[in-house]
């Protein structure tokens, strides 16, 4: 690269020579086809699982089948003897590396987080041992034979459990992972709330979400000598991964290269490595062979960090005109056991009223540790603020009797109101939610809809309209150590082609396309002649890549600045070579022209060739070559705004929701490529539909995940997502190029728009509790005015984790459950007699009666069910029963019962061969 003086710049606020117009240019603003597509469409993409290195071996993990307990012993002897197994590592083997995982902020987490379980397990799916084998199937064979004995303990699963349960982390006083705000509502605020003409208290429960990128996590790690480490890893920024690995693993002397050419979606999950990736990197060093681990979908759904599980109560005081007076929010988020950062989501409170004229706001916000897989980001991590505010405003509108659109008009911050600061001191200069709303209403005839709605209700059709408005902080830079500016490096090759090196990273964002559009536009070359290289930490400079809707804003600005520096050099050189004034030089479609002298036109290739190869012909002091770089530091924050309208029909017989129409009116400033912008919004909206209607990571009371396959975790399919209509406001921002971020917005605003539409449709039946997902069962409950949900203790489907957990066997009877207070009074362990029992099979409860007779340690009896009666013999010891039943149907399997009697209760499990284990519970008959 060139000397800094002539061709680089680093200061913030360094403006380009001519400020670019917003909107359409030759390429900026055009819907050009994507550069990425031809390789991805022909199977020539390079995802991490496509990498094969010489000598590479494969990794599988043995994982915890229980949510909480102490590891008594790990026996790897049998597993190690399998042909093709090279090594098995536990935390004991990795401990000498002394690695503590780091958060996104590159600080150690609040609780010690090791790559493999360190003496205890704290969630189902926690990796306990790492197997290295010739192939993945063989590694899994071995993992399934590792025997782990646990002293199981009662887990803390929900936020509610966390409030009163035993601390998840030994030595901690409680389960609070992070807390901010005031525990008591300020007296003055309380008085304002109490004294207001209208006080809305609105509660939202948001389910846990799996980010579910279509490409799961994965890494190929190879230690090439003592000083080089190369990682192929699916991630959101190779630079951030390199920095994280260097710090977390303590490798300041190592040349770390991280390559991630194609990544199959990230959505926050792949911000930085976590336990499994770290374990693989360490194991590659220990074993000194390249290792590959590709997470399978089962692992991804139970053991990859998850997001969103949260609940919030928002109080809003309004006057009779619907003007906002004051508000208070109380928020909690489930952090799981080992969150990627201990999170109480302060951003929820910072932005909840940023777009509204809210005079006063107070809050309490907390994150809770539980015995579930840890928290990570998901597209718009603070989205609760829009969901709860926008749904609460609709409740308020119905309560006060004001049109919800009018309520928003009376309270939204408009351009005329700015500059101003929000009640949480957020400076606002150019947010446009009110303008987006008006544009939306030009595209959607509300009064015509209301007539249709009224007519429909008379015919039993229940239509609903949901409107939502919001603002989103995007392109943040400077406040968090990892959220930096962006570096652009660009050169015109001696061939006249343009090559740029960027630190952008696409997990579908198409940054190689949008950045190429900028370079082509600003340098006057054909889009086809520009190539942007990214996805490799050996190129460009530090950037967190895709995080916080930042790449279009910041990298776009960097590309413009670098291109303009280079364009200036081209004109200087051309003016010298063609004996013209610099101002007379233009570059268009790869040709350099001199104004008024068409005979002097030369190809850019000719000029470039001279720049590199004929130093004698360069102007005095002109640095050879045609290269430039610029690190752009944008304004601290750039807001995007939007308003959405969603129309649904609810089938009141079934509780099914059909989305009939959806209009997005957003202001993302300059749209570099409107198709890419709309693609980002549409993807986010589809995820919002998933959150509102379909997706849910659930656990049973023992912390077993209930959605371990895509049969149970329902992602939106093509049939769930309507055609979206788009309206663009395009108010240029203060950042170079005028872009505003658009990566996360759809996922934020989509949920309240859809919830509001459903609530509007069902208004005749009462308010819809915002308890996501709004399943047909919950919606029909509102329509029927009765709770149709399953009883809390009837979760019969506690099977999956135990069934399919690769590896460890629980050898502790359920009733021994860890708390094992040996000094307690002896339990009532009368076994003999009849028992009413329920076997909780995957497909539902099976009732049966058991008859037991004991003679010393000998047990005999029978189990009786509608299918018939079967006799058995077994053993009994201190109330613990063991017996086997051979069953012929549906196939020949042996049912192994392990039960324990305590008073008039009996509990335990039944191992059902290939069908895994089922819980047994019952009472004395």
């Amino acid at each position: 690269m060139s000397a800094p003086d002539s061709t680089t710049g680093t200061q913030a606020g360094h403006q380009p020579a001519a400020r670019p117009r917003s909107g359409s240019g030759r390429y900026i603003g055009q819907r050009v086809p994507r550069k990425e597509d031809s390789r991805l469409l022909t199977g020539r993409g390079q995802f991490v699982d496509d990498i094969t290195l010489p000598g590479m071996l494969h990794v599988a993990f043995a994982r915890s089948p229980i949510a909480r307990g102490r590891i008594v012993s790990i026996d790897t002897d049998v597993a190690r003897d399998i042909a093709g197994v090279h090594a098995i590592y536990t935390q004991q083997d990795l401990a000498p590396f002394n690695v503590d995982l780091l958060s996104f902020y590159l600080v150690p987490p609040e609780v010690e987080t090791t790559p493999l379980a360190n003496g205890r397990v704290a969630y189902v799916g926690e990796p306990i041992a790492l197997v290295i084998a010739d192939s993945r199937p063989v590694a899994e064979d071995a993992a399934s034979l590792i025997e782990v004995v646990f002293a199981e303990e009662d887990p803390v699963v929900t936020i509610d459990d966390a409030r009163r349960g035993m601390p998840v982390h030994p030595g901690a006083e409680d389960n609070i992972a992070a807390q901010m705000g005031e525990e008591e509502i300020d007296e003055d605020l309380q008085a304002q709330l109490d004294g207001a003409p209208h006080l809305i208290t609105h509660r939202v429960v948001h389910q846990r979400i799996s980010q579910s990128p279509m490409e799961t996590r994965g890494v190929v790690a190879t230690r090439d000598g003592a000083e080089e480490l190369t990682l192929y890893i699916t991630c959101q920024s190779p630079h951030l991964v390199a920095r994280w690995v260097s710090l977390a693993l303590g490798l300041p002397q190592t040349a770390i290269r991280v390559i991630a050419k194609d990544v199959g979606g990230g959505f926050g999950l792949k911000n930085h490595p976590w336990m499994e990736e770290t374990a693989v990197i360490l194991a590659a060093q220990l074993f000194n062979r390249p290792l590959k681990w590709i997470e399978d979908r089962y692992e991804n759904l139970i053991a990859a960090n998850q997001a969103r599980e949260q609940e919030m109560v928002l109080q809003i005081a309004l006057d009779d005109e619907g003007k906002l007076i004051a508000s208070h929010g109380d928020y909690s988020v489930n952090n799981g056991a080992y969150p990627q950062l201990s999170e109480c989501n302060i951003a929820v409170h910072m932005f909840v009223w940023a777009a509204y004229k809210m005079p006063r706001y107070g809050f309490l916000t907390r994150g809770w540790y539980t015995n579930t897989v840890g928290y990570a980001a998901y597209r718009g991590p603070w989205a609760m603020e829009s969901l709860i505010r926008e749904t609460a405003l609709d409740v308020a509108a119905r309560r006060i009797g004001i049109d919800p659109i009018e309520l928003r008009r009376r309270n939204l911050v408009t351009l005329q109101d700015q500059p101003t600061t929000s009640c949480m001191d957020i400076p606002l200069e150019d947010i446009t939610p009110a303008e987006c709303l008006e544009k939306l209403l030009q595209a959607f005839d509300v009064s015509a809809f209301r007539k249709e709605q009224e007519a429909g209700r008379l015919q039993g059709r229940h239509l609903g309209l949901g409107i939502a408005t919001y603002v989103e902080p995007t392109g943040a830079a400077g406040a968090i150590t990892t959220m930096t500016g962006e570096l652009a490096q660009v050169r015109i090759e001696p061939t006249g082609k343009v090559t740029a090196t960027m630190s952008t990273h696409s997990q579908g964002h198409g940054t190689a396309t949008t950045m190429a559009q900028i370079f082509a536009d600003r340098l006057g070359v054909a889009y086809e002649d520009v190539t942007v290289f990214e996805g490799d930490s050996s190129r460009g400079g530090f950037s967190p890549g895709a995080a916080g809707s930042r790449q279009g804003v910041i990298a776009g600005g960097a590309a413009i600045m670098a291109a303009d520096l280079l364009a200036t050099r081209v004109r200087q050189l051309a003016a010298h070579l063609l004996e013209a004034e610099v101002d007379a030089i233009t570059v268009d479609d790869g040709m350099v022209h001199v104004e008024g002298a068409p005979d002097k036109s030369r190809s850019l290739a000719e000029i470039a060739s001279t720049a590199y190869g004929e130093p004698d012909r360069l102007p005095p002091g002109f640095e050879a070559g045609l290269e430039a770089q610029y690190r752009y530091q944008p304004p601290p924050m750039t807001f995007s705004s939007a308003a959405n309208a969603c129309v649904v029909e609810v089938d009141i017989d079934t509780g099914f929701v059909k989305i009939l129409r959806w209009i997005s009116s957003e202001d993302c400033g300059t749209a570099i490529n409107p198709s890419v912008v709309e693609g980002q919004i549409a993807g986010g909206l589809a995820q919002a539909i998933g959150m509102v209607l379909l997706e849910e990571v659930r656990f049973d009371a023992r912390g077993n995940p209930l959605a371990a396959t895509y049969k149970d975790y329902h992602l939106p399919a093509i049939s769930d997502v309507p055609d979206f209509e788009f309206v663009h406001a395009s108010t240029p921002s203060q950042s170079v190029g005028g872009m505003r971020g658009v990566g996360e917005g759809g996922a934020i605003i989509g949920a309240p728009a859809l919830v509001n539409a459903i609530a509007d449709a069902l208004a005749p039946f009462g308010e819809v509790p915002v308890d996501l997902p709004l399943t047909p069962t919950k919606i029909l409950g509102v329509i029927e005015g009765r709770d149709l949900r399953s009883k809390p203790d009837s979760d019969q489907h506690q099977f999956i984790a135990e069934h399919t957990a690769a590896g460890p066997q629980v050898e502790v009877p359920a009733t021994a459950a860890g708390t094992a207070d040996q000094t307690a009074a002896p339990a009532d362990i009368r076994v003999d007699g009849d028992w009413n029992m329920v076997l909780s099979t995957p497909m539902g409860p099976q009732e049966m009666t058991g008859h037991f007779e004991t003679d010393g340690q000998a047990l005999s009896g029978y189990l009786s069910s509608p299918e018939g009666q079967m006799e058995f013999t077994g053993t009994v010891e201190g109330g613990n029963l063991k017996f086997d039943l051979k069953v012929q149907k549906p196939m020949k399997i042996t049912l192994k019962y392990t039960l324990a009697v305590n008073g008039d209760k009996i509990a335990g499990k039944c191992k059902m061969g290939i069908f895994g284990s089922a819980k047994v519970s019952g009472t004395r008959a």
Partner: protein
Amino acid sequence: MKPAPFDYVAPATIDEACAVLAEAHGGAAVLAGGQTLMPLLNLRMSQPFILVDIGKIAELKGISRANGGTHVGPMTRQCDAIESKILAQDLPVLVQAIRHVGHHQTRNRGTVGGSITLGEPAAELPATAVALKATIEVRSIRGTRQIPAAEFYIGPYMNVLEEDELVTGIRFPEWSSGHITVFHELAQRPGDFALVGIVGALAVDSGRVARAGLAWFGMGPTPMRATAAEQMLLGQPLHEIDPQAVAESAIADTAPFDDQQASAEYRRTVGMRIFARTLREALRTREVA
């Protein structure tokens, strides 16, 4: 996850397949289309010692008419059954049911017999076999058996097959031409298992119901035959049928459970409505015709 190791054989005849099954003493799994078994293998939820692929047995494929009924070879692919002219004429409701099984891509390999044998309680085809009073033909080295579909299922994914037996055919009795078909499946997305499903047929003679076959899916641990509703309909003049009353008696023959997708109470409430709505529409279609 990848499957645990197993052996694989692909016999060419039914006899060979039966011999392998007998020898395996319950350690074998029969691979038909594999669209349900393969996920179970891949998740290591099923770990047989040997997989018996019956895909190369020609005599297990095809659809034909015989003895006044319709014979469906178990290895008939779902996509082929959908295109069958015989089924379109004889058993249109079976075709309708098959269109709802899985997705286009799985129907290209999934078989009619595989789905019927497996007995997923929320699946379409087991219930269709029960409703249409099909007979499952079974063979082993010990001989053959004919099992009424209504007696075939004993629990979720559980049936009365012995470990050495192979399903060799599904025989549907004749449903007179012009019979009324009943089918509705309520599922959140195409290809999902049903929250509530109802399937059946009503044969009509002189304006009265001459034969009724109705079964639920997704409404209990097995396909649930709506026996009481069938009884109630028998002999009734079509114009006197009260769909609501029939639905109320049909719902008594269900035993729905709670799961991730819906609660038992939801299934009962909506099941009754769907049943009444579907029967009403079926009768109305008949009137129009």
